[in-house]
């Protein structure tokens, strides 16, 4: 816990000033290799119904279910406290559907708190940045940053379904803790399965020159799980994780916030365009209201770069639908249609929304009924890249997913250090 009491910050201005000063101090400590307090972390969360995020009372009710209290500083900024942890940080409604929790808590404490909040609440979900989305964001970094600036990418792929592991390492979504920096490696069990987790730190220009070639040679490098936006106002940058956590390693909190806003605007646009395109429903024919109905929507297709083996396919289906704790957080009864084909008229077990899936050794087709949150799609893509095929490509209808991310990004202008 920081020894500064956040409750003394009375308004947004004081809060921003505090975090700016706090950030500068931490960076000085970091450069001197004497970090005394945790860095500022932000956790981006999607509030399932955008109307709820706009309504502070509903937002308070969502957090109260988890034993947390929100105290309003203004219409969109709240102090978050918790009975057991005390002060957690500040929550800001960044966009109608997205909130950010800014916190100076230690990473492990904050991650645990957020995980319990999200897992226990179908109204909240992480912001899911898949490897495909990071791929497009990387292009923006390369375009906007000087080539001699340093960036940091982490790639995470773990073929957990190559073996039949009855107990996942942790409950559901694993913390994207990044690369292990040590620990007792001697005592670890030898498990022969493909697992890639490593970080790459280099100049933007060098990464840009080599990344595509490296990815083509070794597909796990498509599974980008963390990425640093170099700060345009000084050293360091902003580390975005695939579950919407962002660590501020820059000298400015304002710059940190503006990077959050930039990515969140893209993400919100992506959510909207995914839903507009993918949602299936029966609609009235406009020309003859009340008479004729037609089916509208577009399937989501995820195509694997490498065909799954029978064994991996079987473990995937078994682990996902026969065990309560599973990475994909899906519910349903698979209808077996062949050795490597099942249909599941199921449910997204986190958001509790329907989802119809065809799962095969070469890919996955999803039908998203009207009202099912676009986040379901982005979580599915993220998990498939992470646990099944890092080089998987996705489409919504006949449009490539990456094209949708690019189009979403093109509507947002990059304005560092501005609100």
């Amino acid at each position, binding site marked *: 816990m920081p020894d500064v009491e956040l409750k003394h910050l009375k308004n947004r201005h004081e809060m921003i000033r505090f975090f700016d000063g706090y950030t500068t101090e931490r960076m000085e400590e970091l450069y001197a290799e004497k970090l005394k307090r945790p860095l500022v972390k932000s956790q981006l969360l999607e509030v399932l119904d955008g109307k709820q995020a706009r309504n502070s009372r509903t937002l308070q009710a969502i957090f109260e279910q988890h034993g947390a209290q929100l105290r309003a500083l203004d219409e969109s900024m709240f102090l978050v406290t918790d009975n057991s942890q005390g002060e957690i940080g500040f929550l800001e409604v960044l966009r109608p559907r997205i909130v950010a929790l800014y916190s100076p808590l230690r990473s492990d404490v904050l991650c645990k708190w957020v995980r319990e909040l999200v897992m226990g609440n179908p109204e909240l979900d992480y912001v899911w940045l898949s490897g495909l989305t990071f791929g497009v964001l990387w292009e923006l970094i390369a375009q906007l940053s000087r080539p001699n600036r340093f960036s940091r990418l982490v790639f995470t792929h773990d073929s957990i379904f190559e073996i039949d592991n009855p107990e996942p390492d942790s409950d559901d979504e694993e913390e994207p803790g990044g690369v292990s920096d040590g620990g007792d490696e001697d005592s670890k069990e030898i498990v022969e399965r493909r697992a890639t987790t490593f970080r790459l730190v280099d100049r933007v220009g060098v990464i840009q020159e080599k990344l595509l070639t490296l990815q083509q040679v070794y597909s796990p490098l498509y599974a980008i799980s963390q990425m640093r936006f170099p700060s345009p106002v000084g050293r360091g940058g902003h580390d975005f994780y695939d579950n919407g956590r962002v660590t501020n390693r820059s000298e400015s909190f304002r710059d940190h916030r503006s990077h959050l806003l930039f990515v969140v605007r893209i993400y919100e646009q992506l959510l909207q365009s995914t839903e507009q395109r993918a949602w299936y429903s029966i609609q009235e024919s406009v020309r003859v209201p009340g008479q004729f109905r037609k089916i509208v929507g577009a399937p989501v*297709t995820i195509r694997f770069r490498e065909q799954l083996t029978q064994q991996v396919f079987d473990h995937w289906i078994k682990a996902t639908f026969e065990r309560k704790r599973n990475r994909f957080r899906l519910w349903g*009864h698979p209808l077996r249609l062949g050795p490597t084909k099942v249909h599941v*008229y199921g449910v997204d077990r986190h958001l509790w929304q329907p989802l119809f899936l065809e799962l095969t050794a070469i890919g996955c087709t999803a039908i998203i009924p009207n009202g099912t949150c676009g986040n379901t799609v982005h979580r599915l893509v993220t998990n498939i890249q992470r646990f099944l095929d890092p080089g998987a490509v996705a489409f919504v209808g*006949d449009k490539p997913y990456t094209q949708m991310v690019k189009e979403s990004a093109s509507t947002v202008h990059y304005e560092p250090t501005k609100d």
Partner: protein
Amino acid sequence: MSPQKTELVSDPLFQLNFLLWLTQPLPEGSSITPLFFQRNFSVYAISPALVVPLDLQVAAQQAQIKVQPSAKPDVVLTHDVERKFAFSECKASSFGPDSTTADQARSFLVTTSSRAAEVLGLDAAQVRECLLDYLVPESQRALLLQTLGELTSQLSQHGLPTGNFSILGLQATNVEIVLILDEAAAVFFSLSAGSHSVIKFQPDTDPRPLYFIPYDPDVTYASDAEKLFCKRMLFERIHGSVVVAAGRSTVPAEIVLTPNGLLNDAMFGMYALWESRESARHMRGSMQADHARSSASGEQ
């Protein structure tokens, strides 16, 4: 589960979902080739009730020709730019000119005529071309061609207008489902006549895609096993709706689930459109029977 492929291509519900998938936007290289989407055709209406113009009903009566006053093709496809409409009907097999199905076919032939715009409730200028197409197993093509030819002649002889018709044949091999277009369909859909591979699948695998419409009590299924499987799909979707409602509630909570609401959820809202009240009753009865069985066996 791996049904006989020949059985599946003669199942009207498979055919209906197959037709819907042909209009879905899918990327190049998918296991399903959406032929009609690629030619810019989309679904205009599912199972619309089309009324035969009254003067034509009177004329048919006077000529002692049986015509259903209204008929519901399974799907109406449209090409917005070219102002084309295809009335598509799925059938397990051909039928004779004296069967009750022939009465329905006469209605379709009349409604796809020069009166199609009126039947669709559109201006004449909004409909440039109309086609009646039957989707049947390829083995039924010759017989159906003969029947439709006879029905067209019969109507024409009595001065009743008729539209063009075509037959879309479905054939299954061990690894693909093929759609076979005759010349009329080829011209209408701007595709080549002959065979088009539409669904590719692994051997020993059921080729069916995900079903948009999982069940229809009015359909005569290709087999009891097929009917059971479709019912299973429906109940999986209903079960999902119940799980969704329970999962989203904050306990303790009282959840009100109605058969109509659940059936509509499971059918993308199609249940509300079924005009046959008997079918609707059958569906609600099935749900209650299933619930009773589940309760008796202690299933969760």
